């Protein structure tokens, strides 16, 4: 049914109803305008849910660089627009006050984190990688050849003191660089939560 002010007043039969309910304007226009206020002018950008391995499509409604609304992507054939409670709550991560604003540093023995710059964080990490790599380097080790039983010295090129826990929660490209970085600096000790 088409809802117009005239029709509504006819239905109610009394202009008092309009006054009592606070109405006195075009309902259809109001509904449309209310919707427009939130989503009009938004750019819709698809993304992917960050929780279980479903790969459900998200649709982010962005206006002036800000996230206005997040829902399921109806064009993604996996979820066809539906989302579970966790995925539907993902908008709350975008501007969460709980998210740290910058890198943090905790000194040995300290009971607090202090803010540091990215520059300082990268500098400390790179120097530590070099330091531990250099002091724990194993270039060769003696093995018993499994086929011949003979003792042999073989090249192994391992940084024994460095380990890495990668992630099933970052993108493929990041996950790949985790693997590549670990092996280039010399650590085969690279694991992640797929194991658990």
């Amino acid at each position: 049914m088409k809802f117009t002010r005239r029709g509504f007043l006819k239905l109610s039969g009394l202009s008092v109803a309009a006054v009592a309910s606070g109405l006195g304007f075009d309902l259809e226009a109001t509904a449309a305008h209310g919707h427009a206020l939130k989503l009009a002018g938004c750019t819709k950008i698809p993304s992917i849910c960050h929780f279980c391995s479903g790969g459900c499509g998200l649709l982010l409604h962005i206006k002036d660089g800000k996230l206005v609304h997040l829902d399921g992507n109806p064009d993604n054939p996996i979820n066809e627009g539906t989302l579970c409670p966790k995925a539907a709550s993902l908008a709350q991560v975008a501007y969460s006050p709980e998210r740290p604003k910058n890198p943090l540093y905790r000194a040995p023995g300290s009971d607090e984190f202090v803010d540091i710059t990215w520059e300082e964080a990268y500098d400390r990490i790179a120097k530590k990688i070099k330091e531990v790599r250099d002091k724990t380097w194993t270039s060769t080790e003696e093995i018993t050849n499994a086929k011949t039983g003979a003792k042999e010295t073989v090249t192994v090129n391992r940084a024994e003191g460095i380990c890495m826990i990668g992630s099933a929660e970052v993108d493929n490209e990041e996950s790949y660089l985790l693997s590549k970085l670990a092996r280039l600096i010399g650590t085969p000790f690279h694991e992640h939560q797929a194991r658990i």
Partner: protein
Amino acid sequence: MSPSFGRGAMTNSWQDMQNSECFLIAGSNCAECHPIAMKWVNRARAKGAKVIVVDPRFTRTASQADVFAQIRPGTDIAYLGAMINYYIENRLYDEFYVLNFTNALYKISKDFGFKDGMFSGFNPETRKYDYASWAYQLDAEGKPVKADSLDDPDCVFQKLKTHYSRYTFEVASNITGIPVAKIKQIADTFAAAKPGNIFYALGMTQHTTGVQGIRCYAIIQLLLGNVGKAGGGIQALRGEPNVQGSTDMANLNANLPGYIPYPTNQEKTLNDFAAKHGSVQYKPIVALLKAWFGANATAENEYGYQWLPKNNPANMPIQPQFFSKMEEGQFKLLLNWGSNSTVSIPDRKLVARGLSSLEMLVVADIFNTETAQFWKEEGLNPAKIPTEVIFLPAAFVYEKAGSMTNSSRLVQWKEVALKPLNDCHPDLDMLDHIFKRVRALYSGSNDPKDEPILKANWDYGDHEASALKVLQELGGYNDTTGKPIAAIGEYLAAPIGTVSTGCWVYAGVTPEGKNLADRRGNADPTGLGLNKDYAFAWPGNIRVLYNRASCDAQGQPVDSKRKLIWWDPVQNLWVGNDGPDVVDKTKGPDTPEGKIGFKQNPEGVGRLFAATYKSGTVAPEGTAAVVPIRGAGMTVDGPMPEFYEPIESPTANLLHPEVQSNPCAKIVSKEFGNPDEYPYVLTSYGVVEHFCAGAITRNIPWLNEIAPEPYAEISKNLAHKIGVKEGDEVEVSSARGKLVVRALVTDRIQTLKINGKDQETIGMPWSWGFASLSPGPSTNNVTMNACDPGAGTPEYKCCLVNIRRA
């Protein structure tokens, strides 16, 4: 699944679930933990599909079931073995499929044996098996000898029949607590409605017998002829958004990207590596080394093979063992990306001890996790913890471009939707900056040890790293054409040493000027949910793995309603609605190659019995070594699944009391309890509102309002026995630790009858820790760090506890 089918991946897709006639959902509460699965299960149910759920609790998934059975945690192999026995004894298997697509007829070595719970070849000192006797009888050419019929006493089928003859419904019922009639009903229901589909998740893998439980599923599906078919298969419902991708990218100690076995100190040269792992692994590792070292990787320097760090098999800690290696002093620096071990590792007190022993801990995450703040936990003295900690705030999923691979191998690309909040950065940028800085520190070094860093191919942009450039490295390049690889066929056909790819299973994802992971064509003309033009599924955009096995001897679909692929005799080509998973699209069903349903296995068939076997003796190009083409994936604790009690169990092993639990299990925890002190079985689980260790979801107010705290779910009988009512605080304790939570008194858990005695199960969600907006006690205070010997997955799903009013 890899030792059974050749690939470890989920066989079908979410959308494909609508094609099933029956589901066995056991070890997964998908209604809560993978809600998208339930959407498609319900679509199949609307068309009449049956749902069977087996779980220690009456879950939300169980509420949708036609058949529900409550099981004692950790005993699945007992009832699954009984199903295998029943299918064989009553000839309920698909004979054409078993004869053509499995190794049922292959004759097993006379040296193979099984007695009193042990397979032949066990070394009690190392607690490992020597696989030598788990072999086929071989002919003069080294090929497996096949029996003339399934009745041959040496053949795999008879070995299976003998092995599972001990698994009667009665024995299974005594072990599992599922009534005999219910086990029969499960077996009959699942065999009657085809295609049947099996789902599992962590409920099945988090055991010291996890791999063998999945092997039972594989055996059942091979016997019933359900693999390679629309609506069939085994769906590993994986736990994290990109766990398929991160596994593909080898964030694991025994692999390089693309499931290349990680070289050990026994493979001194690239030729040694090829000799051990087969020529089939030679091409991928050369392509990977070319991706990693670019022009510096040449045939003369073994493509840089010597630059790779080599594993020492005697010291290959898995993640749950990392923390011991920290405490023992080996590891001094941990780089930790997007994971929260302080909450997620079983018997978690070990984590704080390990992290406290480090010189530096680096954590990159969205929120400041318990792991980054481990030194703040109550009971620790920060003044005595010398570890430097650096926290790097990471950009969230929609704040960065990149791809993720979902459970069904679908690689989906996304663009940046929002600028990163605050001064957060994508992990990609962090890795790029860190590597470049380390390289700068080594600049000018002539030390051979620094060559891998200085000779690496690492160029993803000057300031901000480009994810697309990285994806293109995965997709690969062809030196001959000078262009990106257009399709996996091009990679497979190229001579060794002429192509590079960072992960060969992704070869062809980025043809020149294209990004197939970013395709948005969502049409579904067949109605089977294949969506072939949506994103990109590895390998080669195949949506249903092993789909050759959906065809008959003439290469035509056995199921006319669910046609995936077929042989077109006019074009002389395998064609179809899906990408054909065949050895060679031009080899018809009358050729040896054209009959192969499981091309990743050296035998070309599905493996009911996981025998040790390597096919062929062809030398790879560019090497002098004579090497096998392909080696079989192995299960380290037996070629056929055997039931073992969990490491902590309330009862004796009914099948072989002298071999109580898995003799190969990796034990990390030091303290274990007995049923006199700790009489109840604890099983941990997830809820729909929280995700894994909760680092993100416990910082989302909406979710905290719905699910604010953990609890212990107990039966009414147990509540009565210990004198608590709903909402009372209870202390749950094990030999390793304790925690206090509220009791949830429920009908969802019932008292079971095990081996003639009443047995109680306790259920607890585990996603809480001491930090975040909504802190709570961690269930992993009490769980046990003992792992499956093959997968290394800890037995989170069962340990012994006590419970009392707090």
